[in-house]
């Protein structure tokens, strides 16, 4: 158990700046999700935490100890890989025992701890099998068992669920979170999937192009995105962003009123007149694809409405879309940063 602190971390590969100045503090026992698109530097950041890469500039501190130049084995960080990285030439039991063996733990204690870890993950029946023949979900459990068999100061997860089927993934997500709640070990979880980050993280750090754009609780990020990137990245579908009134205006697809063109608009409402391009049935709601303007200047957005409203709409013709001004998110047109009205 320990805190983690990144101080002014840079990682340069020649002229390419994979990580371009990150300051981040993770509290003891916290679950921090690092969220970002591929190539944003999140994996490099994680590899620097684990010690697999050395920062070009900056420091990594685990539990107040500067570990910047320590090799991975001296850091007591457990890492779970996207590929699971199970050793194919060893049985499941030997895979789980490997970190203990590498640290010179005696055989009797090793066996006991492997049995316990296997029990925690519910894979006792698999211990003598070869990892090569396991299913994706089973491999993932073995990888987790190998990570938790020793008592690490820190877990780092590199997209551990991304190679699972959608159904198994949802299950694994809640299991992982429960595991964290039991063990209370500081965790850094790297993902490009906002559902994982929103669902599991105590806090989320959103990264883009080697920098952290915003850090906060899932609710903070969802409720008050710091810039247009964060706004356009969270939520499914994400926040609509359209240029209007000299700013970039953001609004969620939910809570949008739709009425026929020409309907008068109350002063506390923000209104856009746009053409409905398509209606999509999503079960409890309908999704409207709307386009304002034409050609180069065309701006698209999405609205969710109830089935009752849909009956009054017509594909191909203009409608007025209204959002209460209080629910708008305003961003600077140049910098993309959040501004207060």
């Amino acid at each position, binding site marked *: 158990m320990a805190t983690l602190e990144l101080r002014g971390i840079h990682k340069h590969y020649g002229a390419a700046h994979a990580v371009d100045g990150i300051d981040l503090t993770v509290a003891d026992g916290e679950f921090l999700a690092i969220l970002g698109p591929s190539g944003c530097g999140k994996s490099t950041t994680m*590899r620097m935490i*684990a*010690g*697999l890469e050395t920062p070009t500039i900056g420091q990594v501190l685990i539990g107040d100890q500067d570990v910047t130049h320590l*090799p*991975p*084995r001296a*850091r007591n*960080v*457990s*890492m779970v*890989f*996207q*590929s699971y*990285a199970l*050793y*194919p*030439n060893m049985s499941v039991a030997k895979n789980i025992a*490997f*970190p203990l063996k*590498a*640290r010179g733990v005696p055989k009797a204690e090793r066996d006991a701890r492997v049995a316990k870890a296997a029990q925690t993950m519910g894979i006792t029946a698999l211990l003598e099998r*070869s990892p*090569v*023949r396991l299913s994706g979900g089973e491999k993932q459990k073995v990888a987790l068992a*190998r990570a938790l068999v*020793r008592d690490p100061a820190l877990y780092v997860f590199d997209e551990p669920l991304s190679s699972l089927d959608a159904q198994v993934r949802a299950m694994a997500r809640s299991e992982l979170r429960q595991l964290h709640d039991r063990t209370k070990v500081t965790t850094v979880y790297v993902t490009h999937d906002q559902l994982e980050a929103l669902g599991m993280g105590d806090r989320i750090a959103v990264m883009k192009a080697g920098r952290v754009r915003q850090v906060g609780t899932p609710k903070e990020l969802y409720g008050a995105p710091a810039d247009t990137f964060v706004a356009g990245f969270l939520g499914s579908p994400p926040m609509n962003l359209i240029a209007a009134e000299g700013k970039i205006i953001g609004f969620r697809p939910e809570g949008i009123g739709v009425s026929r063109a020409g309907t008068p608009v109350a002063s506390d409402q923000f209104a856009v007149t746009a053409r409905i391009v398509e209606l999509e049935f999503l079960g409890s709601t309908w999704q409207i694809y709307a386009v304002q303007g034409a050609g180069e200047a065309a701006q698209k957005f999405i609205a969710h409405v109830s089935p009752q409203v849909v009956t009054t709409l017509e594909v191909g013709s203009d409608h007025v879309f209204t959002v209460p001004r209080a629910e708008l998110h305003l961003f600077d047109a140049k910098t993309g940063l959040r501004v207060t009205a």
Partner: protein
Amino acid sequence: MRYVRKSGFYLGLFLFALFSVFPVAWMVITAFKEDSDLYNVDNNPFLYNLPPTLKHIEYLFTSTHYPTFLWNSLFIGVLVVVITLVLAVPAAYSLARLVGRWGERSGIAVFLVYLIPPTLLFIPLYQLISFAHAANTVWALVLVYPTITVPFCTWLLLGFFKSIPRDLEDAAMTDGCSRWQAFRRVSLPLAMPGIATCVVFAFALSLSDYIYAASFVSSTAARTVSAGVPIELIRGDIYFWQSLMAAGAIVAIPLAIAYGLLFNKLVKGFAATSG
């Protein structure tokens, strides 16, 4: 139906085994034949028409330098295998992990060296060997064979190491291994099939080479089986057939068995790492 298919399978297997064993069996049968049995064209060549004899084998071991050749071949073979592994394993591993274009290009460059035929190389190599004062000794061959085995084995192992995911070594390092331990405990065992192939290749090459063995070594005491046996047992147009066959079979049969056992392990290794 199943019975028919199964017996067909075994029949095929039997024919294949017969085909493989035939030349070796003929060698063994010939090695024990009396001259008058062997040279009578009316006799069935696969049967003993006169009682078998050990005298040609006795001749091979007492009146020729065959035991010296055997020892030299073994000595050279083992050393060449060791030198090959010591050079090729680290070379291949570092080329495989060297990211970017240069790793691949160097790998191809190394392999191209292997393609230069010995007939082109043996004259310049002879100069190098004389310069090293190694001519006419077993060391000449110990030094020369790696010029063939190292490039080939480096190229072969390069593929094996490349197929081992980096994640595995990263995992081993975060699991508590040093860089070296991660290589030794994870990557090296996974490359075992490739390394076994290299052992077989390097040993077989140093055993079967004729051109270097015949041109770099003229003293009998330093000759190998492949160069020494034909020189001692083919005199002018007289072939000592029985002793020649015995000399061949004595080397070939134990090797075939050893390779067979190794091959089993190889296949198991492949099965364990793939899939």
